[in-house]
């Protein structure tokens, strides 16, 4: 599928702020399954944009507005084409014990500091375990929406998995975080993915929709023979594997490694945030490409 994406964020401050520095992780990645055809960022008030790729390979755009201002808009535009991924391998549990797998898994197997205390997840972890790693991946993507309600407003951007357990509800970020733990505790390396999801109604009636930034995850599966292990995307918010509606920005161990916007400014003013993501299909039968 081909999409044009427009991700617009506006901060309105109740008093002027200065030295407003931001890091933006919002540009689509180019991977075997997707190609970012063009992308651009505009900032108002105007600022010099600096770009680099971080440790995880995510494109980061940085800028700073030093002079006082009471409004900041960030406008990201991109065109991207996604394609079907090949069928994932279906390795045995034993295949996860090889050196090659462990090296590729690296930090994606490690527990993080803010995980729920021992025991709290033992039941879920056991329930998530399938016959093999691939089955476990798919099972996790079903298990979480079965057990937890998708409800915005219950958790916030800094919530932990424990908060999700307590509330019994959360959003895609929380679901992804829980899935990561369940997979890692089953010995499967897993990484958090940030991106956009073209969540169109099933009847294909809309070509241009308002969405939010989305989070899902990828699990690492050993490939048969000497092949390099393969990352396979699953979406525990929407069940099943990630597909061509998923546009990936980047990945990390958790949310904090790939936040769409991270910033600080000087001043004690409080900010009102308005963000919108509009995704438009460029290759639909309706021919609605702008």
């Amino acid at each position, binding site marked *: 599928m081909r999409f044009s994406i427009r991700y617009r964020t506006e901060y309105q401050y109740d008093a002027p702020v200065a030295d407003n520095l931001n890091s933006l992780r919002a540009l689509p990645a180019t991977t075997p399954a997707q190609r970012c055809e063009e992308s651009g960022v505009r900032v108002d008030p105007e600022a010099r944009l600096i770009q680099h790729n971080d440790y995880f390979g995510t494109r980061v755009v940085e800028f700073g507005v030093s002079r006082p201002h009471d409004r900041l808009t960030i406008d990201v535009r991109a065109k991207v084409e996604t394609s079907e991924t090949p069928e994932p391998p279906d390795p045995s549990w034993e295949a996860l014990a090889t050196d090659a797998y462990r090296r590729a898994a690296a930090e994606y197997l490690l*527990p993080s500091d803010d995980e729920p205390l021992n025991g709290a997840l033992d039941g879920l972890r056991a329930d998530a375990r399938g016959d093999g790693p691939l089955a476990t991946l798919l099972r996790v993507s079903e298990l979480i929406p079965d057990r937890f309600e998708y409800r915005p407003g219950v958790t916030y951007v800094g919530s932990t998995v424990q908060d999700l357990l307590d509330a019994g509800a959360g959003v895609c970020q929380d679901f992804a975080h829980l899935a990561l733990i369940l997979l890692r505790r089953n010995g499967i390396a897993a990484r958090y993915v940030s991106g956009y999801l073209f969540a169109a109604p099933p009847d294909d009636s809309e070509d241009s929709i308002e969405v939010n930034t989305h989070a899902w995850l990828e699990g690492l599966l050993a490939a048969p023979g000497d092949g390099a292990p393969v990352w396979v995307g699953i979406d525990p918010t929407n069940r099943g594997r990630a597909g061509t509606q998923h546009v990936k920005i980047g990945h990390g161990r958790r949310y904090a490694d790939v936040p769409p916007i991270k910033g600080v400014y000087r001043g004690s003013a409080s900010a009102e945030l308005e963000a919108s993501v509009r995704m438009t299909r460029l290759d639909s039968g309706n021919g609605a490409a702008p």
Partner: protein
Amino acid sequence: MATEYTAAPYAPADGFYDELFDASGGARPHAETLVSRLERLGAGELAAAGRRRDAIFMQQGITFDLTGAAEAADGELRDRPFPLDLVPRILPADEWTVIKRGLAQRIRALNRFVDDVYHAREIVEAGVVPWEMIVSRSHFARPAYGIRPPGDVYCHVAGCDLVRDADGRWKVLEDNVRTPSGISYVLENRLAMTRLVPGLFAGYHVRPVDNYPALLLSALRAVAPGGDDEPTVVVWSPGPANSAYFEHAFLARTMGVELVEASDLVVRDEVCYMRTTSGLARVHTIYRRLDDDFIDPLEFRSDSLLGVPGLMRAYRAGTLALANAVGTGVADDKAIYHWVPEMIRFYLGEEPILDNVETYLLSDPERLAYVLERLDRLVVKPTGESGGKGVFIGPRATDAEIAAQAELIRADPRRWIAQELVHLSTVPTLDSSGALAPRHVDLRPFAVFGEDISIVPGGLTRVALRPGSMIVNSSQGGGSKDTWILDEEVVPDGRPLPPRRATVPPPLPDLRQSSWTGQQEQQQQERSGG
């Protein structure tokens, strides 16, 4: 003939190496003069010097504050004079030469390792250090990935902790390549010794330490990004509440550079500036005295108020040098320590000059079981900490403590290492009565890596002031000693003078009071009339 300290015969502790006396209680050759001088001064004179020392240290504010239960009972925090023991520790020149070479070798390897970890990962590819071991270190700094600092120097300032075992052999106990502290005490201790007990120096050729600030400054200038001809260097301190603030101020003062806090620094685009009374001034090199986690809230901990947002942008762009470089913490992790001898062989193709203490990594289940069985005889340390935090000493622990420690280790074995107990050497130290008694010591020499590696002669000797204790940290009853590295040639008394040259002393104005001699008076003789 061996000299004995007459005030109270000195008895070296059994099973430990004493650096000034041999096992029979006689002074070692390099200590004979010192022992006889101490004897001449006597307990009373030494105690008086101790009182003067405390007064001077209080006056100069060379203090530390005790934290802990004992202090809480007092109800108020009180500054204590830094406890400097007046008996110096003496190391002969040949011994120091070995230490110096060993340290330089070690620091070179650690520096290569940091570079490798954030770039080519050769040591991982070669199968020497497992990648998962590196990425699991809490100080592995992902934001440092791919950044190459000027001159490929990462560990600008390093301080390795050395100990000597019962056989007198030197071993490295710990590497510190983040922000090792203590150098200010080395310099202040020396100055205090020359003022308090100058008589002890007679007969020794002690190598001076006071060029450290100049060494450090020239190294910090050498790594400054090019462009402007006069690089600006600053020392960045977290602020007066930090326990090492004295040292931060000391270094800024002795180097003649600004001591800044986060609020003084600002990054505009990709350049770091400090706020001055005449506007923003470019900063080229920051000697920072805080951990990676706190330097830039945009890239590390976002809850850190100590940091400078955008600092990593400037660093990445190469307009700013940070000392030490970002990410060095991965090299002084206590689990990585285990591989340092391998690093030396891998990167330098040399055999390590200084040995490690026998260390067990607990990620291996067999090792873990072995260690858990012998916990009562081992030392266990958390991998990511420094300064003696969380260290467990088996032989001194109760059964309950051992059980609790075992529980902690089982919960996350990767966060711990175990080591054989080192029988720290002793040096005679004045006890409260003014008599000499053996106390355990370690040594932290300081190295500066600029264009090359320089090591200040000696270093900080920390001494456990409690009898039998091997905890040398100042927060836990430790003190320090002046460390004397002797020049190659020991002169019996006085120092050789440079060849004389004819100097014509300029005339000195005569300061003697001038007198005021009255003019001879004349008698009034005129008569009227006649």
